[in-house]
C-alpha cells in the first residue's frame, strides 16, 4: 500500500525501455497504477476518475524523451497534471482586499482545526500584514470553545472579542463586527462551531452567519488525513456558503493528503494555507508542487529536508556531508548518523517522505524493522575499536566474533551491518557523481543498484 508509485511504474515499464511514443495499452496499464496510488492517497473516487481521463488524453501518443524512461515520463505527466489541478505553481494569498473591518469566516467539520487555525491566521495577518485583528468565536456548541480561542489570542497577542454567555452565533457575529468598526480593527476572524455537512439545522445557522457577516473570505478548514468523505464535505459547504479558500491542516502528519485534490476539484477554490504544526507560527502558504509529489508517493523532498533540519544537529550533518563529499565516510560517521536518525523518529515515516523509497519502507513496515535495529547497529559499532570504525576493511572473522559478543548480537548481524555499510558507501559515491540536482530529479531510485531491491541487492535492507 505504501509502495511508491514510481516503484510500481518502473515495474510496469521495465520491458518498455526505449520506445518512441507512449501507446494506448501502455498508458492504460500505467494509469491503473496511478489510479491505485491516488486512491491510496485518499483522493476521492469521482475526482480520481476525472483526473485519470484527463491524463490519459495527454499521455497517449506523447513522445518519450531521450533521457527518461517511459515510467518517468508518465510520472512527469501525472505530476504536472496534479500540480495544475491543485492550483498551479505558487501560493494564493488570503484576500484582504475589502473595506475594513474585513470579515474572514472559518468553517468546517468538528475537530478539523478551525480554532487553532483562526489563532494562527490572526497572528500571521497581524505580524506579516501589520493589520489589527479581532478574533471572535461563534462556537456555542463545544464546551469551552470560546475560551480556547480567547486563550489562543492571549498567547498570540491578538485581541479577542470578550465572551458574553448566552448569545447566539449570529448575535456574536454582529457584536464582533460592531466592535471591529467601533474600535477600528482591520480584520475580524470569525471562528464557528464544527458542523456536519448533513446537519441541516447547523448548516442553516452558518448560512445565517454568512449573511450577517458578508465575509471577504470563507475558509473551509480540512484535516489532511480526511478520506473519501472530503468530496461530500466540500460540496455541501460550498453549496451552502460559497467557499473562497481551503486550509489544509495537520500537514505535518504523514498522510498523503489526497483530500487536497478532492477539495480543490469539488469547490474550485484555491488551497490557500497549510497547517504544519501545533505552534502558532505553524501556518504556511500552500505549495501545490510540493503536495503533488506527496500525493503520488514520490515523496515530499522539501518536507523531508525541513523535517531533517528541525531535528538534526546541523553542524553534525554538515560535517558528515563534507566527509561524504570527500569519500571519507566511515563507521564513526555512520554511528553519528544513526543517532541523528533515532532523534528524527520512526524510520518508516521518514522513508515515506523520500522519493523512490516506497519499497524499502514497505519492507521495513513488513518486517517491523525500526528503531530497534538502529539501536542494535549502534551497539555493534559501539563494540568496535576506533581503528575498526575508521577502516572497516580490517574486520575479519575473529574481530567479528569479538564484536558480536561485545554487542550481544551474532556474527551474522555484524556481517549484515558491514554489508550495508558497504552498499551505503557505494551509494554515496554515486550520489557524489550525480550531484544534488540528479538526486532531486531522479530520487533515491537513481542510487539503487539496478534491478535489485534498494540497498543490499535483494536482501533485507538491514
Amino acid at each position: 500500500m505504501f509502495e511508491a508509485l514510481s516503484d510500481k511504474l518502473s515495474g510496469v515499464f521495465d520491458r518498455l525501455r526505449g520506445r518512441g511514443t507512449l501507446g494506448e495499452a501502455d498508458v492504460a496499464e500505467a494509469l491503473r497504477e496511478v489510479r491505485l496510488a491516488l486512491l491510496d492517497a485518499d483522493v476521492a473516487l469521482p475526482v480520481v476518475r476525472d483526473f485519470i481521463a484527463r491524463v490519459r488524453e495527454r499521455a497517449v501518443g506523447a513522445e518519450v524523451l531521450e533521457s527518461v524512461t517511459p515510467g518517468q515520463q508518465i510520472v512527469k505527466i501525472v505530476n504536472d497534471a496534479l500540480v495544475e489541478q491543485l492550483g498551479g505553481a505558487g501560493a494564493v494569498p488570503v484576500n484582504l482586499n475589502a473595506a475594513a473591518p474585513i470579515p474572514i469566516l472559518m468553517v468546517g467539520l468538528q475537530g478539523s482545526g478551525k480554532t487553532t487555525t483562526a489563532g494562527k491566521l490572526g497572528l500571521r495577518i497581524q505580524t506579516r500584514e501589520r493589520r489589527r485583528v479581532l478574533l471572535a468565536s461563534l462556537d456555542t456548541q463545544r464546551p469551552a470553545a470560546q475560551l480556547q480561542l480567547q486563550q489562543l489570542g492571549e498567547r498570540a497577542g491578538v485581541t479577542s472579542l470578550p465572551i458574553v454567555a448566552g448569545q447566539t452565533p449570529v448575535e456574536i457575529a454582529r457584536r464582533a463586527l460592531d466592535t471591529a468598526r467601533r474600535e477600528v480593527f482591520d480584520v475580524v476572524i470569525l471562528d464557528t462551531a464544527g458542523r456536519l455537512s448533513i446537519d441541516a439545522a447547523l448548516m442553516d445557522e452558518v448560512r445565517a452567519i454568512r449573511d450577517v457577516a458578508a465575509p471577504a473570505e470563507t475558509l473551509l478548514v480540512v484535516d489532511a488525513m480526511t478520506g473519501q468523505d472530503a468530496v461530500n464535505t466540500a460540496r455541501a459547504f460550498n453549496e451552502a456558503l460559497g467557499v473562497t479558500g481551503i486550509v489544509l491542516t495537520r500537514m505535518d502528519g504523514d498522510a498523503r493528503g489526497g483530500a487536497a485534490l478532492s477539495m480543490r476539484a469539488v469547490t474550485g477554490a484555491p488551497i490557500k494555507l497549510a497547517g504544519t504544526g501545533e505552534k502558532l507560527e505553524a501556518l504556511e502558504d500552500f505549495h501545490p508542487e510540493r503536495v503533488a509529489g506527496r500525493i503520488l508517493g514520490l515523496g515530499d523532498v522539501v518536507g523531508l529536508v525541513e523535517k531533517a533540519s528541525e531535528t538534526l544537529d546541523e553542524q553534525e550533518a554538515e560535517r558528515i556531508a563534507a566527509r561524504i563529499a570527500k569519500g571519507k565516510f566511515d563507521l564513526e560517521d555512520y554511528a553519528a548518523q544513526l543517532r541523528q536518525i533515532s532523534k528524527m523518529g520512526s524510520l518508516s515515516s521518514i522513508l515515506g517522505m523520500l522519493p523512490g523509497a516506497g519499497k524499502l519502507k514497505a519492507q521495513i513496515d513488513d518486517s517491523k524493522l525500526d528503531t530497534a535495529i538502529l539501536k542494535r547497529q549502534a551497539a555493534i559499532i559501539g563494540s568496535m575499536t576506533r581503528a575498526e570504525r575508521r577502516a572497516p576493511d580490517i574486520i575479519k572473522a575473529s574481530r567479528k566474533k569479538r564484536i558480536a559478543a561485545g554487542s550481544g548480537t551474532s556474527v551474522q548481524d555484524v556481517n549484515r551491518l558491514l554489508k550495508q555499510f558497504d552498499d551505503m558507501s557505494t551509494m554515496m559515491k554515486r550520489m557524489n557523481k550525480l550531484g544534488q540536482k540528479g538526486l532531486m530529479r531522479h530520487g533515491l531510485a537513481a542510487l539503487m543498484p539496478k534491478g535489485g531491491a534498494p540497498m543490499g541487492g535483494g536482501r533485507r535492507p538491514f
Partner: protein
Amino acid sequence: MALGFFNRLKAGLSRSTQKLSDGITGAFTRRKLDDAALEELEETLIAADLGTEVAARVIAAFRRTRFGREVTDEEVKTALAGEIAEILAPVARPLEIDPAHKPFVVLVVGVNGTGKTTTIGKLAQHYAEAGLRPMLVAGDTFRAAAVEQLQIWGQRTSAPVIAGAANADAAGLAFEALTRAAAEGADVVLIDTAGRLHNKSVLMEELRKIIRVIRKHDPSAPHATLLVLDATTGQNAIQQVRVFKEMVDITGLIVTKLDGSARGGIVVALAEAFGLPVHAVGVGEQAADLRPFDAEDYARGLVGT
C-alpha cells in the same frame, strides 16, 4: 440504553450510508452480477474508505460465491454486509471494566481533534449510569482550554475532574489522580491526553512516560489504552493505529463522528490488519451519543440495508 439503541444507531448510520446505498441500488436492481457490476460494487466500497486492497479482497471473496448470478439489490446488499460483518465480528468487543482493578484505569489517546475529550465525557456518563464512580483526569495540559472543556464534561456527568496548573506535567498529574482515585474510591479513572500526531516521536515518547509513571502507582495499569479515531479519516488511519499500537500498546478503538457523511470503512481495513477490539462508536456531540460497536449493524450500515 437497550431499546433506543438500534434506532439511534440506525439514524446515525443511515445518513452516512445514504449515498453508498444509492450506489448499490443503482447498480444492482435485477441485474447479472458480472465483471462490470462487481467493479462498480468494488468502487462503492472504495468510496466508503475501505481502501483499494481490502475492497478488492472483499469483492474477490464475493465473486467466488456469486459470480454470474441474477441478483436483486436486496440480495447483494445482504450478502455483502454478511461478508463485511464476518471481518468485523471478531473485533466487536465491549470494554469490560474488571472490578478486580479498583480503580480501573483507562488512558485515552489519539491525534488532535478526533474526539478524545468528548468520548471521555460520554464514557463517564455511561459508567455513572451503570452505577460506577468515574473520575476524569485533565491530562491535556497543552491545548488551550482543554482542561476547562473536560471540567464542563465533569459537571454534565457529575464526575470529579482532577486538573493541574496550566502546562503541568501530564504524567505527574496522572500519578496524583490515581492516588486520589484510590483514596476516594473511584471505580474507573478516565485519563484525557493531548492530541498528537503519531509521527512526532517526542510526543509519542511523552505518552510512554505517562504510562511509566502510572505504573509506578499500579504496575497493571493502564488497564485499557483507547485510541479514539475519527471516522472521516482515510487510509492514514492504518499508519496511525500501527504507530500508536507500537508505541503505547493500545488495547482498543473508539470510532467517532459516525453521525456524519463519512462511512468509516477504514474500520474494516483496521480489523483485518490489527484485530484490535472496537469498543464503541460516537454518533453525536452529546453525552448520550455513544453506542456499542455491533459488527452486523456496522456492516449493514456500510452497505445500506
